[in-house]
Protein backbone atom coordinates (compact mmCIF):
# COMPACT_ATOMS: atom_id res chain seq x y z
CA UNK A 1 0.00 0.00 0.00
CA UNK A 2 1.46 3.40 -0.96
CA UNK A 3 2.15 5.83 1.88
CA UNK A 4 -0.71 8.15 0.93
CA UNK A 5 -3.17 5.28 1.27
CA UNK A 6 -1.69 4.07 4.52
CA UNK A 7 -2.17 7.55 5.95
CA UNK A 8 -5.72 7.74 4.62
CA UNK A 9 -6.49 4.34 6.12
CA UNK A 10 -5.10 5.47 9.48
CA UNK A 11 -7.17 8.64 9.35
CA UNK A 12 -10.31 6.69 8.49
CA UNK A 13 -9.73 4.25 11.33
CA UNK A 14 -9.06 7.02 13.85
CA UNK A 15 -12.13 8.86 12.64
CA UNK A 16 -14.54 5.96 13.16
CA UNK A 17 -12.90 5.21 16.49
CA UNK A 18 -13.23 8.77 17.81
CA UNK A 19 -16.32 10.03 16.01
CA UNK A 20 -18.89 8.41 18.33
CA UNK A 21 -17.75 10.93 20.94
CA UNK A 22 -19.28 13.70 18.85
CA UNK A 23 -21.75 12.03 16.48
CA UNK A 24 -24.62 9.59 17.02
CA UNK A 25 -23.25 6.06 16.73
CA UNK A 26 -26.32 4.90 14.80
CA UNK A 27 -25.63 7.53 12.20
CA UNK A 28 -22.00 6.40 11.95
CA UNK A 29 -23.02 2.76 11.65
CA UNK A 30 -25.38 3.68 8.86
CA UNK A 31 -22.56 5.58 7.16
CA UNK A 32 -20.24 2.57 7.43
CA UNK A 33 -22.84 0.20 5.99
CA UNK A 34 -23.41 2.48 3.03
CA UNK A 35 -19.68 3.06 2.66
CA UNK A 36 -19.16 -0.68 2.34
CA UNK A 37 -22.06 -0.87 -0.11
CA UNK A 38 -20.50 1.88 -2.23
CA UNK A 39 -17.03 0.30 -2.07
CA UNK A 40 -18.51 -2.98 -3.28
CA UNK A 41 -20.25 -1.16 -6.12
CA UNK A 42 -17.04 0.68 -6.96
CA UNK A 43 -15.18 -2.61 -7.22
CA UNK A 44 -17.44 -3.50 -10.12
CA UNK A 45 -17.58 -0.23 -11.99
CA UNK A 46 -14.35 1.46 -10.96
CA UNK A 47 -12.14 -1.57 -11.48
CA UNK A 48 -14.23 -3.89 -13.64
CA UNK A 49 -15.78 -1.17 -15.82
CA UNK A 50 -19.26 -2.62 -15.37
CA UNK A 51 -22.11 -0.26 -14.50
CA UNK A 52 -24.80 -2.08 -12.56
CA UNK A 53 -28.09 -0.28 -12.09
CA UNK A 54 -29.51 -2.91 -9.82
CA UNK A 55 -27.17 -3.15 -6.88
CA UNK A 56 -29.96 -2.48 -4.40
CA UNK A 57 -31.13 -6.05 -5.00
CA UNK A 58 -28.06 -7.35 -3.17
CA UNK A 59 -28.32 -4.87 -0.31
CA UNK A 60 -32.02 -5.57 0.12
CA UNK A 61 -31.92 -9.33 -0.39
CA UNK A 62 -29.20 -9.73 2.23
CA UNK A 63 -31.22 -7.51 4.55
CA UNK A 64 -34.38 -9.61 4.20
CA UNK A 65 -32.50 -12.88 4.49
CA UNK A 66 -30.64 -11.75 7.60
CA UNK A 67 -33.75 -10.30 9.23
CA UNK A 68 -35.79 -13.40 8.49
CA UNK A 69 -33.08 -15.75 9.72
CA UNK A 70 -32.55 -13.80 12.93
CA UNK A 71 -36.21 -13.18 13.70
CA UNK A 72 -38.07 -16.24 12.43
CA UNK A 73 -35.40 -18.91 12.62
CA UNK A 74 -33.57 -17.50 15.62
CA UNK A 75 -30.15 -17.49 13.95
CA UNK A 76 -27.27 -16.06 15.98
CA UNK A 77 -26.18 -12.70 14.51
CA UNK A 78 -22.97 -14.05 12.95
CA UNK A 79 -24.92 -16.76 11.14
CA UNK A 80 -27.72 -14.39 10.20
CA UNK A 81 -25.17 -12.08 8.58
CA UNK A 82 -23.48 -15.01 6.90
CA UNK A 83 -26.81 -16.29 5.63
CA UNK A 84 -27.79 -12.87 4.28
CA UNK A 85 -24.44 -12.45 2.58
CA UNK A 86 -24.68 -15.92 1.04
CA UNK A 87 -28.17 -15.11 -0.26
CA UNK A 88 -26.79 -12.02 -1.99
CA UNK A 89 -23.92 -14.08 -3.40
CA UNK A 90 -26.34 -16.62 -4.82
CA UNK A 91 -28.44 -13.87 -6.36
CA UNK A 92 -25.21 -12.41 -7.72
CA UNK A 93 -24.35 -15.69 -9.38
CA UNK A 94 -27.77 -16.10 -10.99
CA UNK A 95 -28.15 -12.49 -12.18
CA UNK A 96 -24.49 -12.41 -13.17
CA UNK A 97 -24.84 -15.40 -15.46
CA UNK A 98 -27.77 -13.66 -17.13
CA UNK A 99 -26.25 -10.20 -17.44
CA UNK A 100 -22.49 -10.50 -17.72
CA UNK A 101 -22.22 -11.00 -21.48
CA UNK A 102 -23.99 -7.72 -22.17
CA UNK A 103 -21.92 -4.64 -22.79
CA UNK A 104 -22.22 -1.07 -21.54
CA UNK A 105 -25.72 0.30 -21.35
CA UNK A 106 -27.27 -3.11 -22.04
CA UNK A 107 -25.60 -4.49 -18.95
CA UNK A 108 -26.97 -1.57 -16.91
CA UNK A 109 -30.46 -2.14 -18.33
CA UNK A 110 -30.47 -5.87 -17.64
CA UNK A 111 -29.33 -5.40 -14.07
CA UNK A 112 -32.01 -2.76 -13.60
CA UNK A 113 -34.68 -5.06 -15.04
CA UNK A 114 -33.59 -7.96 -12.83
CA UNK A 115 -33.56 -5.71 -9.77
CA UNK A 116 -37.10 -4.54 -10.58
CA UNK A 117 -38.28 -8.15 -10.78
CA UNK A 118 -36.71 -8.82 -7.40
CA UNK A 119 -38.38 -5.69 -6.03
CA UNK A 120 -41.83 -6.76 -7.16
CA UNK A 121 -41.26 -10.20 -5.74
CA UNK A 122 -40.46 -8.74 -2.33
CA UNK A 123 -43.41 -6.39 -2.60
CA UNK A 124 -45.72 -9.41 -2.96
CA UNK A 125 -43.99 -12.08 -0.88
CA UNK A 126 -45.64 -12.49 2.54
CA UNK A 127 -42.42 -12.98 4.53
CA UNK A 128 -41.26 -9.43 3.79
CA UNK A 129 -44.41 -7.83 5.29
CA UNK A 130 -44.68 -5.52 2.28
CA UNK A 131 -44.67 -1.84 3.14
CA UNK A 132 -44.02 -2.50 6.83
CA UNK A 133 -40.92 -4.57 6.32
CA UNK A 134 -39.50 -7.07 8.80
CA UNK A 135 -39.45 -5.10 12.02
CA UNK A 136 -38.00 -5.60 15.50
CA UNK A 137 -35.28 -7.91 14.29
CA UNK A 138 -33.37 -9.19 17.33
CA UNK A 139 -29.68 -8.38 17.26
CA UNK A 140 -28.87 -11.35 19.45
CA UNK A 141 -25.67 -12.51 21.09
CA UNK A 142 -22.60 -12.41 18.87
CA UNK A 143 -20.66 -15.69 19.17
CA UNK A 144 -22.99 -16.45 22.05
CA UNK A 145 -21.28 -13.97 24.37
CA UNK A 146 -21.43 -10.40 23.09
CA UNK A 147 -24.85 -8.81 23.48
CA UNK A 148 -25.40 -6.65 20.42
CA UNK A 149 -28.27 -4.85 22.11
CA UNK A 150 -25.43 -2.88 23.60
CA UNK A 151 -24.82 -0.03 21.21
CA UNK A 152 -21.04 -0.14 21.62
CA UNK A 153 -20.88 -3.85 20.96
CA UNK A 154 -22.93 -3.24 17.84
CA UNK A 155 -20.71 -0.33 16.87
CA UNK A 156 -17.55 -2.40 17.26
CA UNK A 157 -19.07 -5.19 15.17
CA UNK A 158 -20.05 -2.84 12.37
CA UNK A 159 -16.62 -1.29 12.42
CA UNK A 160 -14.97 -4.71 12.23
CA UNK A 161 -17.22 -5.73 9.32
CA UNK A 162 -16.62 -2.47 7.49
CA UNK A 163 -12.84 -2.56 7.80
CA UNK A 164 -12.65 -6.25 6.93
CA UNK A 165 -14.77 -5.62 3.84
CA UNK A 166 -12.79 -2.53 2.91
CA UNK A 167 -9.45 -4.31 3.22
CA UNK A 168 -10.71 -7.29 1.28
CA UNK A 169 -11.76 -5.00 -1.56
CA UNK A 170 -8.36 -3.34 -1.41
CA UNK A 171 -6.74 -6.72 -1.73
CA UNK A 172 -8.94 -7.76 -4.63
CA UNK A 173 -7.99 -4.60 -6.49
CA UNK A 174 -4.31 -5.25 -5.81
CA UNK A 175 -4.22 -8.94 -6.61
CA UNK A 176 -3.26 -10.88 -9.74
CA UNK A 177 -7.00 -11.07 -10.40
CA UNK A 178 -7.38 -7.31 -9.97
CA UNK A 179 -4.57 -6.77 -12.43
CA UNK A 180 -6.38 -8.78 -15.12
CA UNK A 181 -9.60 -6.96 -14.30
CA UNK A 182 -7.88 -3.63 -14.92
CA UNK A 183 -6.50 -4.91 -18.19
CA UNK A 184 -9.99 -5.96 -19.28
CA UNK A 185 -11.39 -2.56 -18.37
CA UNK A 186 -8.58 -0.84 -20.27
CA UNK A 187 -8.77 -2.91 -23.44
CA UNK A 188 -11.09 -5.87 -23.50
CA UNK A 189 -10.27 -6.94 -27.06
CA UNK A 190 -6.60 -7.07 -26.27
CA UNK A 191 -7.19 -9.06 -23.09
CA UNK A 192 -9.16 -11.59 -25.14
CA UNK A 193 -6.45 -11.75 -27.76
CA UNK A 194 -3.96 -12.61 -25.02
CA UNK A 195 -6.11 -15.61 -24.17
CA UNK A 196 -8.14 -14.39 -21.21
CA UNK A 197 -11.71 -15.61 -20.85
CA UNK A 198 -12.90 -12.14 -19.94
CA UNK A 199 -16.46 -13.21 -19.15
CA UNK A 200 -15.28 -15.35 -16.26
CA UNK A 201 -13.21 -12.54 -14.81
CA UNK A 202 -16.11 -10.15 -15.04
CA UNK A 203 -18.42 -12.70 -13.49
CA UNK A 204 -16.11 -13.16 -10.52
CA UNK A 205 -15.86 -9.38 -10.08
CA UNK A 206 -19.65 -9.14 -10.19
CA UNK A 207 -20.00 -11.97 -7.72
CA UNK A 208 -17.54 -10.42 -5.27
CA UNK A 209 -19.26 -7.07 -5.60
CA UNK A 210 -22.69 -8.62 -4.99
CA UNK A 211 -21.42 -10.56 -1.99
CA UNK A 212 -19.84 -7.52 -0.35
CA UNK A 213 -22.91 -5.40 -1.08
CA UNK A 214 -24.82 -8.21 0.64
CA UNK A 215 -22.53 -8.06 3.64
CA UNK A 216 -23.35 -4.36 3.94
CA UNK A 217 -27.09 -5.04 3.69
CA UNK A 218 -26.97 -7.88 6.20
CA UNK A 219 -25.12 -5.76 8.74
CA UNK A 220 -27.45 -2.84 8.16
CA UNK A 221 -30.49 -5.01 8.90
CA UNK A 222 -29.10 -5.84 12.32
CA UNK A 223 -28.12 -2.26 13.07
CA UNK A 224 -31.61 -0.91 12.32
CA UNK A 225 -33.33 -4.14 13.31
CA UNK A 226 -35.27 -3.70 10.12
CA UNK A 227 -35.41 -4.93 6.53
CA UNK A 228 -37.62 -2.90 4.26
CA UNK A 229 -38.47 -2.18 0.65
CA UNK A 230 -36.36 1.00 0.69
CA UNK A 231 -33.22 -1.09 0.38
CA UNK A 232 -34.38 -2.95 -2.72
CA UNK A 233 -35.94 0.04 -4.42
CA UNK A 234 -34.39 1.27 -7.67
CA UNK A 235 -33.67 4.64 -6.08
CA UNK A 236 -31.22 2.85 -3.77
CA UNK A 237 -29.40 1.53 -6.84
CA UNK A 238 -29.23 5.11 -8.07
CA UNK A 239 -28.02 6.39 -4.74
CA UNK A 240 -25.01 4.10 -4.70
CA UNK A 241 -24.05 5.33 -8.17
CA UNK A 242 -24.28 8.86 -6.81
CA UNK A 243 -22.15 8.07 -3.75
CA UNK A 244 -19.46 6.48 -5.87
CA UNK A 245 -19.33 9.24 -8.47
CA UNK A 246 -19.37 11.94 -5.84
CA UNK A 247 -16.56 10.36 -3.85
CA UNK A 248 -14.47 9.33 -6.82
CA UNK A 249 -15.01 6.44 -9.18
CA UNK A 250 -12.14 3.99 -9.24
CA UNK A 251 -10.46 5.45 -6.17
CA UNK A 252 -9.99 3.38 -3.03
CA UNK A 253 -11.38 5.84 -0.49
CA UNK A 254 -13.78 7.79 -2.70
CA UNK A 255 -16.88 5.66 -2.13
CA UNK A 256 -16.46 5.98 1.63
CA UNK A 257 -16.35 9.76 1.42
CA UNK A 258 -19.19 9.82 -1.10
CA UNK A 259 -21.39 7.63 1.08
CA UNK A 260 -20.65 9.79 4.07
CA UNK A 261 -21.59 12.98 2.24
CA UNK A 262 -24.86 11.55 0.92
CA UNK A 263 -25.88 10.08 4.27
CA UNK A 264 -25.06 13.33 6.04
CA UNK A 265 -27.09 15.28 3.54
CA UNK A 266 -30.07 12.99 3.93
CA UNK A 267 -29.82 13.26 7.66
CA UNK A 268 -29.52 17.00 7.99
CA UNK A 269 -31.71 17.91 5.07
CA UNK A 270 -34.44 15.49 6.11
CA UNK A 271 -36.77 18.34 7.06
CA UNK A 272 -36.72 19.46 3.44
CA UNK A 273 -38.69 16.32 2.57
CA UNK A 274 -38.86 15.67 -1.13
CA UNK A 275 -36.42 18.48 -1.73
CA UNK A 276 -33.57 16.23 -0.60
CA UNK A 277 -33.81 14.49 -3.94
CA UNK A 278 -33.66 17.81 -5.76
CA UNK A 279 -30.62 18.91 -3.75
CA UNK A 280 -28.95 15.57 -4.43
CA UNK A 281 -29.69 15.92 -8.11
CA UNK A 282 -28.20 19.39 -8.12
CA UNK A 283 -25.07 18.16 -6.35
CA UNK A 284 -24.79 15.38 -8.85
CA UNK A 285 -24.95 17.83 -11.74
CA UNK A 286 -22.40 20.14 -10.12
CA UNK A 287 -20.14 17.19 -9.44
CA UNK A 288 -20.27 15.99 -13.02
CA UNK A 289 -19.71 19.48 -14.39
CA UNK A 290 -16.96 20.71 -12.09
CA UNK A 291 -15.06 17.88 -10.47
CA UNK A 292 -15.44 14.85 -12.61
CA UNK A 293 -13.04 12.77 -10.63
CA UNK A 294 -15.14 13.15 -7.51
CA UNK A 295 -13.97 14.57 -4.18
CA UNK A 296 -11.26 12.02 -3.48
CA UNK A 297 -10.31 11.69 -7.13
CA UNK A 298 -9.69 15.43 -7.38
CA UNK A 299 -7.79 15.45 -4.11
CA UNK A 300 -5.58 12.58 -5.23
CA UNK A 301 -4.98 14.28 -8.54
CA UNK A 302 -4.05 17.52 -6.80
CA UNK A 303 -1.69 15.75 -4.39
CA UNK A 304 -0.43 13.54 -7.23
CA UNK A 305 -0.87 10.58 -4.90
CA UNK A 306 -3.11 7.54 -5.20
CA UNK A 307 -6.00 7.62 -2.72
Amino acid sequence: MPRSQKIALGVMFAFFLAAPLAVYPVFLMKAMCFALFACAFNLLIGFGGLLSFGHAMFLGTAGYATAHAAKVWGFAPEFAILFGTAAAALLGLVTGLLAIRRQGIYFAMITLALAQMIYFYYLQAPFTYGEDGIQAVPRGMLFGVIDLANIWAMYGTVMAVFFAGFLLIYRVIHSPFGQVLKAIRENEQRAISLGYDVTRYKLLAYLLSATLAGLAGATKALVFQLASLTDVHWSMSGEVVLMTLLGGLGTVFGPVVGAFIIITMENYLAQLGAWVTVVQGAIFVICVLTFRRGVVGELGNWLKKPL
Partner: protein
Amino acid sequence: MSDDFILETRGLTKEFKGFVAVQNMSLKVQRGSIHALIGPNGAGKTTCFNLLTHFLEPTRGQILYNGREITGSNPANIARLGLVRSFQISAVFPHLSVLENVRIALQRKRGASFDFWRALRVLDGLNQQARELINAVGLAEYENTAAVELPYGRKRALEIATTLALDPEMMLLDEPTAGMAHQDVERISALIKKAAHNRTVLMVEHNLSVVEHLSDRITVLQRGEILAEGDYKSVSANPEVIQAYLGSGHG
Protein backbone atom coordinates in the same frame (compact mmCIF):
# COMPACT_ATOMS: atom_id res chain seq x y z
CA MET B 1 2.34 -32.75 -46.77
CA SER B 2 -0.36 -30.78 -44.99
CA ASP B 3 1.81 -30.83 -41.86
CA ASP B 4 3.99 -28.21 -43.48
CA PHE B 5 1.16 -25.75 -43.21
CA ILE B 6 0.52 -24.39 -39.77
CA LEU B 7 -2.59 -22.53 -40.89
CA GLU B 8 -5.00 -23.31 -43.64
CA THR B 9 -8.34 -21.86 -44.63
CA ARG B 10 -10.82 -23.50 -46.97
CA GLY B 11 -13.40 -21.42 -48.75
CA LEU B 12 -13.42 -18.82 -46.00
CA THR B 13 -16.18 -16.28 -46.59
CA LYS B 14 -17.56 -13.35 -44.63
CA GLU B 15 -20.62 -11.43 -45.67
CA PHE B 16 -21.87 -8.26 -44.03
CA LYS B 17 -25.51 -7.77 -44.89
CA GLY B 18 -25.04 -8.99 -48.44
CA PHE B 19 -21.70 -7.24 -48.87
CA VAL B 20 -18.92 -9.78 -49.21
CA ALA B 21 -15.77 -8.70 -47.36
CA VAL B 22 -13.90 -11.98 -47.70
CA GLN B 23 -14.82 -14.36 -50.46
CA ASN B 24 -14.01 -18.01 -50.79
CA MET B 25 -10.51 -17.57 -49.49
CA SER B 26 -8.25 -20.57 -49.39
CA LEU B 27 -4.99 -19.64 -47.80
CA LYS B 28 -2.09 -21.78 -46.67
CA VAL B 29 0.64 -20.52 -44.42
CA GLN B 30 3.86 -22.49 -44.25
CA ARG B 31 5.24 -23.27 -40.83
CA GLY B 32 8.15 -21.06 -39.84
CA SER B 33 7.64 -18.57 -42.65
CA ILE B 34 6.85 -14.89 -42.76
CA HIS B 35 3.78 -14.58 -44.88
CA ALA B 36 2.53 -11.17 -45.97
CA LEU B 37 -1.06 -10.32 -46.77
CA ILE B 38 -1.28 -7.22 -48.92
CA GLY B 39 -3.90 -5.44 -50.93
CA PRO B 40 -5.64 -2.10 -51.30
CA ASN B 41 -7.66 -0.58 -48.49
CA GLY B 42 -10.91 -2.41 -47.90
CA ALA B 43 -9.62 -5.59 -49.50
CA GLY B 44 -10.60 -7.60 -46.44
CA LYS B 45 -7.25 -8.08 -44.72
CA THR B 46 -8.35 -7.05 -41.25
CA THR B 47 -11.58 -8.97 -41.65
CA CYS B 48 -9.51 -12.02 -42.51
CA PHE B 49 -7.56 -11.63 -39.25
CA ASN B 50 -10.81 -11.24 -37.37
CA LEU B 51 -12.07 -14.48 -38.87
CA LEU B 52 -8.89 -16.40 -38.17
CA THR B 53 -9.03 -15.46 -34.48
CA HIS B 54 -12.82 -15.70 -34.31
CA PHE B 55 -13.31 -12.06 -33.42
CA LEU B 56 -15.80 -12.40 -36.27
CA GLU B 57 -17.84 -15.45 -37.16
CA PRO B 58 -17.26 -16.70 -40.72
CA THR B 59 -20.32 -16.99 -42.92
CA ARG B 60 -18.84 -20.06 -44.58
CA GLY B 61 -15.63 -21.97 -44.71
CA GLN B 62 -13.15 -23.71 -42.46
CA ILE B 63 -10.02 -22.75 -40.59
CA LEU B 64 -7.43 -25.33 -39.67
CA TYR B 65 -4.60 -24.67 -37.28
CA ASN B 66 -1.96 -27.37 -36.93
CA GLY B 67 -4.29 -29.63 -38.87
CA ARG B 68 -7.04 -29.16 -36.34
CA GLU B 69 -10.25 -27.34 -37.11
CA ILE B 70 -10.64 -24.16 -35.04
CA THR B 71 -13.48 -22.56 -36.99
CA GLY B 72 -15.92 -22.54 -34.10
CA SER B 73 -13.45 -21.97 -31.27
CA ASN B 74 -13.64 -18.81 -29.18
CA PRO B 75 -10.97 -16.07 -29.44
CA ALA B 76 -9.40 -16.66 -26.03
CA ASN B 77 -9.11 -20.36 -26.77
CA ILE B 78 -7.46 -19.71 -30.10
CA ALA B 79 -4.93 -17.47 -28.37
CA ARG B 80 -4.20 -20.23 -25.88
CA LEU B 81 -3.56 -22.62 -28.75
CA GLY B 82 -0.68 -20.36 -29.75
CA LEU B 83 -2.26 -18.26 -32.51
CA VAL B 84 -1.98 -14.70 -31.20
CA ARG B 85 -3.00 -11.57 -33.05
CA SER B 86 -2.25 -7.89 -32.81
CA PHE B 87 -4.57 -5.11 -33.90
CA GLN B 88 -4.46 -2.53 -36.64
CA ILE B 89 -4.96 0.19 -34.06
CA SER B 90 -2.27 -0.26 -31.48
CA ALA B 91 -3.56 -2.32 -28.61
CA VAL B 92 -1.98 -1.66 -25.25
CA PHE B 93 -3.41 -1.27 -21.77
CA PRO B 94 -3.08 2.52 -21.62
CA HIS B 95 -3.03 3.14 -17.88
CA LEU B 96 -0.86 0.21 -16.96
CA SER B 97 2.90 0.67 -17.00
CA VAL B 98 5.06 -0.86 -19.72
CA LEU B 99 6.18 -3.53 -17.26
CA GLU B 100 2.60 -4.32 -16.24
CA ASN B 101 1.51 -4.52 -19.87
CA VAL B 102 4.02 -7.24 -20.61
CA ARG B 103 3.36 -8.92 -17.30
CA ILE B 104 -0.34 -9.30 -18.10
CA ALA B 105 0.68 -11.60 -20.91
CA LEU B 106 3.19 -13.51 -18.78
CA GLN B 107 0.54 -13.76 -16.08
CA ARG B 108 -1.75 -15.61 -18.46
CA LYS B 109 0.88 -18.24 -19.08
CA ARG B 110 1.11 -18.73 -15.34
CA GLY B 111 -2.48 -20.01 -15.48
CA ALA B 112 -5.85 -18.43 -14.82
CA SER B 113 -5.56 -15.48 -12.46
CA PHE B 114 -8.67 -15.86 -10.36
CA ASP B 115 -6.67 -15.53 -7.14
CA PHE B 116 -8.22 -12.34 -5.79
CA TRP B 117 -6.99 -13.00 -2.25
CA ARG B 118 -3.28 -12.95 -3.10
CA ALA B 119 -1.06 -9.91 -2.97
CA LEU B 120 0.30 -8.44 -6.18
CA ARG B 121 3.74 -9.39 -4.88
CA VAL B 122 3.27 -12.92 -6.20
CA LEU B 123 3.72 -11.48 -9.69
CA ASP B 124 7.17 -10.11 -8.90
CA GLY B 125 8.63 -13.40 -10.04
CA LEU B 126 7.61 -12.45 -13.59
CA ASN B 127 9.40 -9.10 -13.56
CA GLN B 128 12.76 -10.44 -14.70
CA GLN B 129 11.29 -12.09 -17.76
CA ALA B 130 9.18 -9.03 -18.50
CA ARG B 131 12.27 -6.81 -18.36
CA GLU B 132 14.11 -9.05 -20.81
CA LEU B 133 11.25 -8.71 -23.28
CA ILE B 134 11.11 -4.95 -22.73
CA ASN B 135 14.84 -4.64 -23.30
CA ALA B 136 14.59 -6.68 -26.46
CA VAL B 137 12.22 -4.13 -28.00
CA GLY B 138 14.29 -1.18 -26.78
CA LEU B 139 11.90 0.05 -24.11
CA ALA B 140 14.15 -0.44 -21.08
CA GLU B 141 14.06 3.22 -20.09
CA TYR B 142 10.24 3.28 -20.22
CA GLU B 143 9.65 0.37 -17.86
CA ASN B 144 7.58 2.38 -15.39
CA THR B 145 5.95 4.71 -17.90
CA ALA B 146 2.22 4.37 -18.46
CA ALA B 147 1.65 2.95 -21.94
CA VAL B 148 -0.59 5.88 -22.87
CA GLU B 149 2.38 8.24 -22.58
CA LEU B 150 4.56 6.37 -25.07
CA PRO B 151 5.07 7.77 -28.57
CA TYR B 152 3.21 5.82 -31.25
CA GLY B 153 6.16 3.78 -32.52
CA ARG B 154 7.02 2.72 -28.98
CA LYS B 155 3.45 1.62 -28.37
CA ARG B 156 3.72 -0.76 -31.29
CA ALA B 157 6.99 -2.06 -29.90
CA LEU B 158 5.29 -2.63 -26.56
CA GLU B 159 2.49 -4.44 -28.29
CA ILE B 160 4.96 -6.78 -29.95
CA ALA B 161 6.76 -7.37 -26.66
CA THR B 162 3.43 -8.24 -25.05
CA THR B 163 2.57 -10.63 -27.86
CA LEU B 164 6.02 -12.22 -27.68
CA ALA B 165 5.58 -12.70 -23.94
CA LEU B 166 3.07 -15.42 -24.79
CA ASP B 167 5.74 -17.07 -26.91
CA PRO B 168 3.11 -17.77 -29.58
CA GLU B 169 3.65 -20.40 -32.18
CA MET B 170 2.14 -18.06 -34.74
CA MET B 171 1.71 -14.28 -34.72
CA LEU B 172 -0.76 -12.26 -36.76
CA LEU B 173 0.40 -8.66 -37.15
CA ASP B 174 -1.98 -6.10 -38.63
CA GLU B 175 0.00 -3.23 -40.18
CA PRO B 176 2.77 -3.24 -37.59
CA THR B 177 4.59 -0.28 -39.15
CA ALA B 178 1.64 1.88 -40.19
CA GLY B 179 2.00 5.54 -39.28
CA MET B 180 5.58 5.15 -38.13
CA ALA B 181 8.63 7.30 -38.63
CA HIS B 182 11.38 5.85 -40.79
CA GLN B 183 13.75 4.79 -38.00
CA ASP B 184 10.87 3.14 -36.11
CA VAL B 185 9.95 1.15 -39.20
CA GLU B 186 13.44 -0.23 -39.32
CA ARG B 187 13.46 -1.10 -35.66
CA ILE B 188 10.11 -2.89 -35.87
CA SER B 189 10.97 -4.82 -38.99
CA ALA B 190 14.22 -5.98 -37.42
CA LEU B 191 12.19 -7.02 -34.42
CA ILE B 192 9.73 -8.99 -36.52
CA LYS B 193 12.58 -10.69 -38.30
CA LYS B 194 14.08 -11.71 -34.98
CA ALA B 195 10.75 -12.82 -33.54
CA ALA B 196 10.08 -14.93 -36.64
CA HIS B 197 13.22 -16.90 -36.02
CA ASN B 198 11.36 -19.72 -34.33
CA ARG B 199 7.76 -19.03 -35.18
CA THR B 200 5.37 -18.28 -38.02
CA VAL B 201 4.28 -14.75 -38.82
CA LEU B 202 1.33 -13.69 -40.92
CA MET B 203 1.33 -9.95 -41.41
CA VAL B 204 -0.68 -7.29 -43.14
CA GLU B 205 1.68 -4.62 -44.34
CA HIS B 206 1.46 -1.64 -46.65
CA ASN B 207 5.10 -0.69 -46.65
CA LEU B 208 6.29 -2.64 -49.67
CA SER B 209 9.96 -2.38 -48.81
CA VAL B 210 9.20 -4.04 -45.47
CA VAL B 211 7.22 -6.70 -47.33
CA GLU B 212 10.05 -7.26 -49.76
CA HIS B 213 12.64 -7.38 -47.04
CA LEU B 214 10.79 -9.69 -44.65
CA SER B 215 8.38 -11.99 -46.35
CA ASP B 216 8.94 -15.44 -47.72
CA ARG B 217 5.57 -15.48 -49.37
CA ILE B 218 2.95 -12.93 -50.31
CA THR B 219 -0.76 -13.18 -50.84
CA VAL B 220 -2.49 -10.28 -52.58
CA LEU B 221 -6.12 -9.66 -51.74
CA GLN B 222 -8.54 -7.60 -53.72
CA ARG B 223 -12.21 -7.12 -52.91
CA GLY B 224 -12.11 -10.10 -50.60
CA GLU B 225 -10.57 -12.46 -53.09
CA ILE B 226 -7.06 -13.76 -53.57
CA LEU B 227 -5.66 -12.04 -56.62
CA ALA B 228 -2.16 -13.46 -56.65
CA GLU B 229 0.24 -15.42 -54.53
CA GLY B 230 3.95 -16.07 -54.62
CA ASP B 231 7.28 -14.56 -53.64
CA TYR B 232 7.92 -10.84 -53.89
CA LYS B 233 9.45 -10.99 -57.32
CA SER B 234 6.67 -12.89 -59.01
CA VAL B 235 3.90 -10.98 -57.26
CA SER B 236 5.35 -7.56 -57.98
CA ALA B 237 5.73 -8.46 -61.64
CA ASN B 238 2.13 -9.62 -61.92
CA PRO B 239 0.23 -7.18 -64.16
CA GLU B 240 -3.05 -7.73 -62.29
CA VAL B 241 -1.38 -6.76 -59.04
CA ILE B 242 0.14 -3.66 -60.56
CA GLN B 243 -3.25 -2.79 -62.00
CA ALA B 244 -4.97 -3.26 -58.61
CA TYR B 245 -2.45 -1.07 -56.84
CA LEU B 246 -2.43 1.66 -59.42
CA GLY B 247 -6.17 1.43 -59.94
CA SER B 248 -7.34 2.07 -56.42
CA GLY B 249 -4.24 3.36 -54.70
CA HIS B 250 -3.26 2.04 -51.35
CA GLY B 251 -2.90 3.51 -47.92
